[in-house]
């Protein structure tokens, strides 16, 4: 049985300290060079991410979370049915998943990992606490990658904001 095609989309602004948790996580996962795993680190989700999403079996969105569970939280992501939430500067995971279904006819399983951050001022570099949370999240994500854990283990609904 072929490996599942896994896509990791880490997003946020590294120039706003802990908002860079998503890209930092994606870059750390890319460094693992895991078979069947593709990564993307960007400032925000983009419409064209729908193309890569449509070519995946599992998608893990990773964002910084300003509040909520430490060190990280996991939510299932369902495709948006109302695509009018689109704006060129704000694209939500649900919308990318919805676009994948609408344009390409495929909606993979998806989860959103919100890594708890604390400092969001105009500076580069993660806070020490955020860095520790990132390390914990990476252990979980790596276990997902190698099949030791289920993609979605939380029954919470909604998404970190």
């Amino acid at each position: 049985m072929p490996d599942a095609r896994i896509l990791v989309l880490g997003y946020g602004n590294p120039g706003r300290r802990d908002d860079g948790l998503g890209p930092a996580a994606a870059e750390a996962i890319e460094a693992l060079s895991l078979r069947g795993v593709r990564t993307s680190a960007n400032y925000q989700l983009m419409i064209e991410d729908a193309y890569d999403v449509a070519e995946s079996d599992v998608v893990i969105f990773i964002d910084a979370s300003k509040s909520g569970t430490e060190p990280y939280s996991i939510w299932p992501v369902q495709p948006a049915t109302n695509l009018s939430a689109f704006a060129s500067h704000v694209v939500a995971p649900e919308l990318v998943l919805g676009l994948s279904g609408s344009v390409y006819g495929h909606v993979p399983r998806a989860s959103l990992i919100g890594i708890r951050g604390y400092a969001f001022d105009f500076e580069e570099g993660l806070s020490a606490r955020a860095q520790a949370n990132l390390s914990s999240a990476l252990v979980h994500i790596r276990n997902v990658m190698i099949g030791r854990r289920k993609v979605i283990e939380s029954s919470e609904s909604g998404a970190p904001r």
Partner: protein
Amino acid sequence: MIETRKIVIDPVTRIEGHGKVTIRLNEDGSVAETRFHVVEFRGFERFIRGRPYWEVAMIVQRLCGICPVSHHLCAAKAMDKIAGVDRLTVTADKVRRIMHYGQVLQSNAVHFFHLASPDLLFGFEGPAEKRSFVGTIENYPEVAKWAIFVRKFGQSVIKAVGGKKIHPSLAIPGGVNKNLSIAERDVLRGEVDRVVAWCGDALELCKRLIHEDAVRLEDFGTIESSYVSVVRADGAIDVYDGGRRAIGPNGAKIFDGVTPEMYDDVIGDEVRSWSYMKFPYIRSLGKEQGWFRVGPLAQVNCCDFIDTPQAENARLDFKRPGDGNPIHATLYQHWARVICMLHAAEKVKELLYDDDLQGDELTISGERRPEGAAWIEAPRGMLYHRYRVDEDDLVTNAKLAVATTNNNEAINRSVKKVAIDYLTGHEITDVLLNNIEVAVRAYDPCLSCATHALGDMPLLVMLEASDGTTIATRARA
């Protein structure tokens, strides 16, 4: 004394950044004046001061999340001169070029597919909820596929040479820090034919939509203007490097072969109290007559030919109605933009089959100079950077003239034309509101770059009397 009244529309939607439009009326209700206000302020020219010159190409791309590559490369070209380098190695030149063609491709794709095409596909008077890219996805799924993939491919080109899709790192004074690997090249080669084909399909779609409503579109917001663009020495379109050419409304050359060092000799800036954006003009024509347009329409009007086959055929087709004269239709900027998008796709393909991209000579050095100036044709038109550096290698002065600033007067004039044609009475109708937005959007203004305000304002429409009292207010969230 003639009493005047003022209508304010704020901000314009589906442009990059925020803008505000004021229409001043005479007492009889006719349009006296229009103003396209810019309320953002960035201040890059100031906070670059004191930074080492080799950092600037990385810093200035933070000006914009849409065309960071253009700022990155324009600053690097200026810093080449400060580093004493007038000619890069062949590999460095071509690696920078393919990055810029990737930028032009993705940015023009965003504008045509995401921002402009819904107006053409669904009509200016179409319902707002439908007249958007979401409407395109739901009603024209094949076009949505083109949009997503062409943009994604352009971003992939940028990432391949710059490491990241947004705010990449490639150019350094005197060259580049990497070439394009064979593995990266082969991935892009596998996708480029589809991109060229879909850009060609987009061109046919654009032409069909324009021809179906040609009578209205040719006149909509149309103004006769001069044009300024960078042109290669042999007259070919060249968005990366060349001499500056200006042509008048009848196509006659005003100047040609101008170098970046001559910028202040040929282009002046007028400051007006009501706008953060300056008003550039061709000095030899003066402030009143010297305004001009830049961007895809200027790029196609100014060049003698395009050096890629499909785009050249498209240029000949585009210019045929003018019988050799410039095309002035404001909304034909979309058509010109798709020609430039197709050209960029063809150039990317050409470069992907050029072994120079895998060369090892990446940098060259020279004797330090105190000043460097450069320009590039960003997707929205002429972008100019000039820097002065002290003996400690720190920037002491910077000037950035961006494309949207160059189109400032033209945007105001197109808005006035639309206001004259569509304003009746003192009511700001949906039709008027939509049409003003369509006229502004034709220039693809990127306001975060174009000003030197922070803010995120709601849509607000105001009718004011000449004494400043508000006659009516209308807000659209």
